[in-house]
């Protein structure tokens, strides 16, 4: 599976580093529906209590770097979760 993991690792890096440059800021499906039908205002805005709210690291200067930092944090967390999950799934004797 090394080629496959390598391939997706590279794709992921490209998405995080380059994707944020081209990403559209248009509202996604649900947001658009909410705006058109008039219930978008119900969303609780709330203060940004997380340093990574909205996929931007609040403590980093510069939009691209802030987004990349947030992306790396998220990718790292999910990858770590997957690795931990994998470890709990390993059975003795290669079941």
């Amino acid at each position, binding site marked *: *599976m090394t*080629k496959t993991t390598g391939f997706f690792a590279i794709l992921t890096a490209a998405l995080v580093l380059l994707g944020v440059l081209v990403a559209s800021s248009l509202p996604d499906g649900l947001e658009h529906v909410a705006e*058109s039908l008039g219930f978008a205002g119900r969303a*609780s805005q709330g203060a940004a209590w997380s340093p*990574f*709210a909205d996929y931007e690291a609040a403590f980093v200067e510069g939009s691209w770097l802030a987004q990349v930092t947030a992306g790396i944090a998220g990718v790292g967390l*999910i990858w770590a979760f997957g690795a931990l999950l*994998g470890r709990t*799934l390993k059975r003795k004797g290669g079941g």
Partner: protein
Amino acid sequence: MHIPDGFLTPPVWAALDAGAIPVVGYFVRRTQRSFEQSRIPLLGVLGAFVFAAQMINFPIWAGTSGHLVGGALLALTLGPSAAVVVMTAILVVQALVFQDGGLLALGANVLNMAVIGVWVGYLPAKLLGRRTSARRVAAFAGGWLSLMAGALCAAIELWLSQVAPPGPLFASMLGIHAVTGLAEGAITAASLVAIERLNPGFVYANGGRAAQPAGDAVVEEPRARQAAVSGR
């Protein structure tokens, strides 16, 4: 289609929060019982890929964008049970760390994208068989149906929360996600084609039945032929 807090009314989000816990717990146990060992390396890397892809919106038509959700892709590579678990983790991280999707609405989002989205995404391939020539079509269909099913569930939840009249609500949710679903289907199918090229003999994941006794290898062709094909 991450639902933020404030859209759903308490009876709706509370019921879904309560229901999501045992459902995800069930799939955690099922994953522990029957995950194909050889796919372990895929857990982290595909989860990370789906997370990253969800961050990158692409324009769909005037005024709207879409992004990969990834339920079908995870289901076909990791198996649907593990896909439920990984997608749930993604949604939890998104809500807790990135404030994408509400905290109270987590149950709803988990149900829509991690449970229903995953299993509906898996169904066409399961019905058509993992190695038939129709499997690429099944992957595309799985991606599209997975979005439609998720959007339908979200629309039902929003309707129950009385945010808008049902006609326009269902029409617009299903209409927009029918278009985004084409991209989801295409990306799902293309990803699986790529995996097959890199890993000849790769078979779309099973539904969580116990792994084969002597060979839980993902590649099911004889080693000699596989080595010849991939030049190792």
